[in-house]
């Protein structure tokens, strides 16, 4: 053999090893290179002695040792078999992998290193290849299992190359233990599955936007919340799609800051769902970076806090009201005393000036102002005080009957009729009779004020369900002019009034009391042209035996 051939042999083997290390795309190439290397090696070893040149022989001997050393000390396992599968050569790495000594494997069938089913089938594989030439592993490489001496299995990458030498075939196997890699891949897969199922099941929005704010992905929770499927909006601008129009510019700025690595923590920015609803979302966002450290997008996790915020708002509102209520209750006694002293002094003054009509007129005006102040004060107090209900089973008919009677003075000199159109319906509900008496007084006061000198006020009722419980729906309807158009949305707001007299608290108090009973007060349409207010009153625990309020249930004297 030409001396110049040796470096090529070494190069081919080196290429084979290198390719194998790079794995897996280069396994086939590696195997081919290895085949070339082996073939050359084989030829060299057979032919070298015939050259008969001492120097050359020594040189060849040296190279052979070198190659032998490389093979034996290679990090990967290498072994060769003949056409029958008998192991001819095995390196130390392979012995370590399979935990055998060299003499335990050389000369044995290679199937001893394989677990079933390849253990039983390998002789057949070889025969099939020798007969048909159909390659199933040679030059291809695949992931298989090896069997150690102690019977345990381990995953390995196998590349096989074939060398034909003087009509005889030799097969070389390159073996790499991939236990660690498989384990790492498995761990990675588990991590990925875990992350994926987290994203899938999270009861929070998980959203990824690209650096331009376009939607990359979001999770099923977001699909349910927003009503959009990801495939319908992927690639679209987030802010144009989901931000309320008034907010789009501002949230885009926040997004820009997040891209500059300023994390968002709990910023609340609403989204608009497909059906036009706004949901309040608290966002936590983080910049995603690529391998070069460039901002690749923003990962945002959003919590729907709509209900929470509403509850907080309600709590705040009721705390505020409770505070005002306490304050006003605290003021109550002294204010009433002051009003009383004014009243007493006014009456005494009138006695003193009884013969002076002009002075008496002024006194009467002071009296009117004092009365208005007292009424205003009382309405504010009754709106702001904490509601403590004492429920009893009451017939609503009786409660509104009493309220109607209380207002006899207001109707004096006018012909206003109350038409009860609720005949036959059971109107027993668990309510606070005092509070509900006020509800009816307020509704009737408004209705009476709306009617002219002649008027009708109708009460209608029907049985209904509210929030899944039996309820009564009452409608109080007058034939006055109705609310001026455009005011419908504000009628339950405190201090909203369409009258020249009055505090504008009447309907706010009605709503507050009905709400406290778990019911609902709303504007509706009725048979008469004027205002129609609808009260939904849950019947409460047991519409059984009616217990009427006693005569002294605490109503203030008329």
């Amino acid at each position, binding site marked *: 053999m030409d001396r110049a051939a040796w470096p090529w042999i070494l190069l081919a083997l080196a290429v084979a090893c290198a390719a194998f290390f790079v794995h897996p795309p280069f396994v086939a190439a590696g195997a081919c290179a290895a085949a070339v290397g082996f073939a050359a090696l084989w030829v060299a070893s057979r032919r070298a002695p015939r050259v008969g040149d001492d120097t050359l022989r020594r040189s060849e001997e040296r190279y052979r040792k070198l190659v032998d050393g490389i093979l034996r000390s290679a990090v990967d396992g290498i072994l060769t078999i003949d056409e029958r599968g008998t192991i001819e050569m095995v390196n130390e790495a392979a012995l370590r992998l399979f935990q055998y000594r060299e003499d335990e494997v050389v000369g044995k069938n290679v199937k001893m290193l394989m677990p079933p089913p390849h253990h039983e089938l390998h002789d057949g594989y070889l025969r099939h290849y020798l007969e048909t030439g159909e390659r199933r592993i040679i030059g291809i490489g695949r992931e298989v299992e090896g069997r150690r001496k102690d019977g345990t299995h381990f995953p390995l990458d196998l590349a096989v190359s074939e060398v034909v030498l003087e009509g005889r075939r030799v097969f070389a196997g390159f073996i790499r233990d991939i236990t660690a890699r498989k384990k790492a891949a498995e761990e990675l897969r588990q991590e990925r599955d875990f992350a994926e199922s987290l994203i899938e099941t999270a009861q929070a929005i998980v959203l990824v936007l690209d650096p331009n704010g376009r939607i990359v992905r979001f999770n099923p929770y977001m699909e349910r919340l927003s009503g959009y499927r990801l495939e319908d909006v992927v690639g679209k601008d987030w802010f144009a799609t989901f931000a309320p129009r008034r907010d789009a510019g501002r949230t885009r700025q926040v997004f820009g800051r997040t891209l500059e690595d300023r994390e968002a923590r709990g910023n609340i920015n609403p989204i608009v769902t497909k059906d036009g609803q706004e949901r309040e979302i608290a966002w936590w966002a983080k910049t995603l970076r690529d391998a070069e450290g460039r901002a690749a997008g923003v990962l945002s996790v959003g919590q729907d806090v709509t209900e929470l915020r509403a509850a907080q708002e309600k709590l705040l509102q009721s705390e505020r009201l409770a505070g005002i209520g306490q304050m006003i209750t605290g003021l109550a*006694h002294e204010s009433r005393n002051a*009003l*009383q002293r004014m*009243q*007493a002094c006014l009456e005494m003054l009138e006695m003193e000036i009884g013969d002076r009509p002009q002075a008496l007129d002024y006194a009467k005006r002071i009296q009117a102002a004092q009365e208005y102040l007292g009424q205003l004060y009382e309405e504010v107090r009754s709106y702001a005080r904490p509601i403590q209900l*004492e429920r009893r089973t009451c017939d609503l008919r009786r409660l509104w009957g009493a309220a109607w009677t209380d207002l006899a003075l207001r109707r004096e000199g006018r012909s206003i009729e109350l038409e009860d159109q609720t005949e036959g319906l059971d109107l027993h509900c668990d309510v606070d009779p005092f509070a509900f008496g006020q509800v009816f007084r307020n509704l009737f006061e408004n209705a009476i004020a709306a009617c002219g000198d002649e008027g009708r006020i109708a009460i209608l009722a029907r049985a209904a369900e509210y929030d899944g419980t039996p309820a009564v729906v009452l409608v109080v309807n007058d034939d006055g002019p109705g609310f001026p158009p455009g005011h419908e949305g504000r009628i339950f707001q405190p201090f909203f009034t369409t009258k020249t007299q009055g505090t504008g608290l009447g309907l706010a108090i009605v709503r507050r009391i009905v709400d406290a009973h778990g019911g609902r007060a709303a504007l509706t349409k009725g048979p008469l042209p004027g205002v129609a207010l609808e009260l939904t009153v849950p019947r409460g625990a047991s519409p059984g035996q009616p217990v009427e309020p006693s005569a002294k249930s605490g109503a203030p004297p008329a």
Partner: protein
Amino acid sequence: MTGVRRLRIAVADDEPDMREYFGRILPLLGHELVAVASSGAGLVEMCRRVAPDAIITDIKMPDMDGLDAVERIRAERPVPVIVVTGYQDRAHRARAHDLDVAAYFLKPVKRADLEQALARLAGR
């Protein structure tokens, strides 16, 4: 007022204006003011001495409130009571109700209110 029995009335209020008011208004309504107290304890003491036909009392007063005073007076002899107070909470109303007061007026009370209530008492 004609035909209505003339009542001998004791009043209690810590406001001087109110004491003066009762002093002027009750005779006009045909009744006699027989005792004026500015505290609960004073009312108890005076009622022992003058044995009035009716009591008009405030609730909140120094040393003893009006309802406590009524309880003590009632323990010695029955007497109808009209309450005139700034308290409108359920607890005070309930206490007054338990004492079976003849009327519970929330301040500011007017001459007409008193006239009606006293007429009812005088007619008993």
